[in-house]
């Protein structure tokens, strides 16, 4: 157990740039853009030569309970958007992390150093799996949540500058509820992503070079051949089934993929919809689908294969 903790720490050390700094800098960029927006608004307002769309003070005094509730939901939406931006970043970070996880050290031969230590190959591969499943997503979510708190503070201060109390609107939002719901998506997404994690680790540990090419080309060729078989009237798999399953192999690590596969979020959000769609019962509901567990089995098999290659691949 102690060794496993250190293996996770090792992954963090090596990939801190992707796991921590990428989400941090993205969040900073969003905050800076927000500040720039506020400053621009203020400058134009002070110059007074631009017609403002609204007057904060008047807006506030005219708001009724329904408006406040809607404004609160807008904040919830903002929290989801901020987290989603980091989710996109996380997707790219994880994709290349997993492709390199069992390949980079073979390329620079440092695999010989890792293999000189009393660490089993199973523990090594599993530490990389857990890093992709939980560690990186949890760090990204923590950064997103802190970033959202900073954003709330910024908005509150700005409103206060104009004598407007933003607290009722914040009280109408559900930052904790949202954070809890987003947290729940992490383990569910992690299980949903297992075939993708396994797929990328498999190529990372098995090929002599260019794992990216193999991981991407094999599915693309499979889809193309299947479509061609279809066009020729030969036996083939229904193309949308093919695309969604093969797509899951390649894109399954995108946070929220599990939840989207349930058909949520496809038609945008309406009033109050976000909290409902992200309700724990919906999020956890994915666990009751056969697709989830078939994927877990496929992922486990691929990870097993990756461990075998890690043990026996001989690059001399």
């Amino acid at each position: 157990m102690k060794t496993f903790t250190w293996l996770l720490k090792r992954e963090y050390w090596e990939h801190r740039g992707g796991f921590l700094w990428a989400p941090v800098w993205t969040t900073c960029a969003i905050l800076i853009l927000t500040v720039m927006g506020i400053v621009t608004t203020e400058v134009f307002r002070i110059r007074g030569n631009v017609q403002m769309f609204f007057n904060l003070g008047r807006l506030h005094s005219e708001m009724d309970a329904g408006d406040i509730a809607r404004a609160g939901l807008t904040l919830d939406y903002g929290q989801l958007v901020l987290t989603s931006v980091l989710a996109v970043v996380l997707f790219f970070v994880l994709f290349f992390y997993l492709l390199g996880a069992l390949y980079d050290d073979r390329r620079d031969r440092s695999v010989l150093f890792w293999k000189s230590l009393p660490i089993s190959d199973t523990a090594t591969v599993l530490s990389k799996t857990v890093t992709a499943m939980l560690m990186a997503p949890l760090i990204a979510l923590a950064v997103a949540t802190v970033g959202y708190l900073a954003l709330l503070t910024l908005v509150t201060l700005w409103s206060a500058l104009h004598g407007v109390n933003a607290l009722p609107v914040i009280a109408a939002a559900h930052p904790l509820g949202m954070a809890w719901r987003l947290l729940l998506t992490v383990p569910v997404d992690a299980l949903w992503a297992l075939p993708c994690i396994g797929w990328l680790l498999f190529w990372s540990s098995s090929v002599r070079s260019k794992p990216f090419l193999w991981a991407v080309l094999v599915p693309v060729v499979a889809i193309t051949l299947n479509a061609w078989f279809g066009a020729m009237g030969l036996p083939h798999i229904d193309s949308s089934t093919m695309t969604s399953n093969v797509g899951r192999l390649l894109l399954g690590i995108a946070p929220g993929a599990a939840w989207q596969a349930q058909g949520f979020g496809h038609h945008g959000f309406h009033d109050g919809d976000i909290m409902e769609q992200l309700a724990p019962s919906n999020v956890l509901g994915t666990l009751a689908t056969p697709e989830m567990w078939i994927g877990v089995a496929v992922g486990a098999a691929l990870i097993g294969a990756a461990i075998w290659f890690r043990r026996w691949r001989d690059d001399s």
Partner: protein
Amino acid sequence: MSAVIKASGLSKRYGKTVALDGVDFEIEGGRIVGLIGPNGAGKTTALKAILGLTDFQGELSVLGLDPRRQRHELMQQVCFIADVAVLPRWMRVAQVIDFVGAVHPRFDRAKCERFLARTKVQMRQRVKELSKGMIVQLHLALVMAIDARLLVLDEPTLGLDILYRKSFYQSLLEDYFDEQKTILVTTHQVEEIEHILTDLMFIRDGKIVLDADMDAVGERFVEVMVNAEHADSARALNPLDERQIFGKNIFLFDGVERARLETLGEVRRPSVADLFVATMKGTYA
């Protein structure tokens, strides 16, 4: 002392190439064994088999364990340095030490830090900021701080200057080696390790062509400096090798009676390098 490594019928092929061809050997504890061979002779394959890094045919036991199935247990007692470039370049020196200390039950951190204190390696530095020589000093410090029973070195000083090479082997001998430990080393710089070896193994085309301790090597192989007039009688004794220096012929004999050779000229012990060259004649032809 029982054998630390025992191989019989050890074979390995890569496609059509035979890397190891039914090799048998035994290595006792408390020895420093040089495994010497030309490029592509099977040295690295043999080491990989011993370290459980590759599959093979035949029997092999290392510290009583099967490296294929019990690699994990084996690595608690075996250390190896593959070559200079294998420490992860992104890691900081302090991280490497923390990590090895955490995962290796036989690592003595204080000892490692003591070795490093004698070098210019700084804790904050990343491996990629170190010179090749400093990387090997770091690796050596890590390995010497691990109380392992078998240390395997595969070209550990490749590409280092002579100062680093000398101090590498000197540290090994003075601060690390004792009767409880066994060192197996391959290198092309034979002349630099010859004085520290207790045993010599030559490997050629996947076969062990010489396996003897250094005393036996000294008894078996004799070099004679012969004046031109005795050259023909020396040739009649079927020498392994003949070369000429300053108008004298130097013959290398295997297993010829010493007293008889002394009548031909000045007798001396051949260097491992000369022995190697003579034994491997025609390898690349």
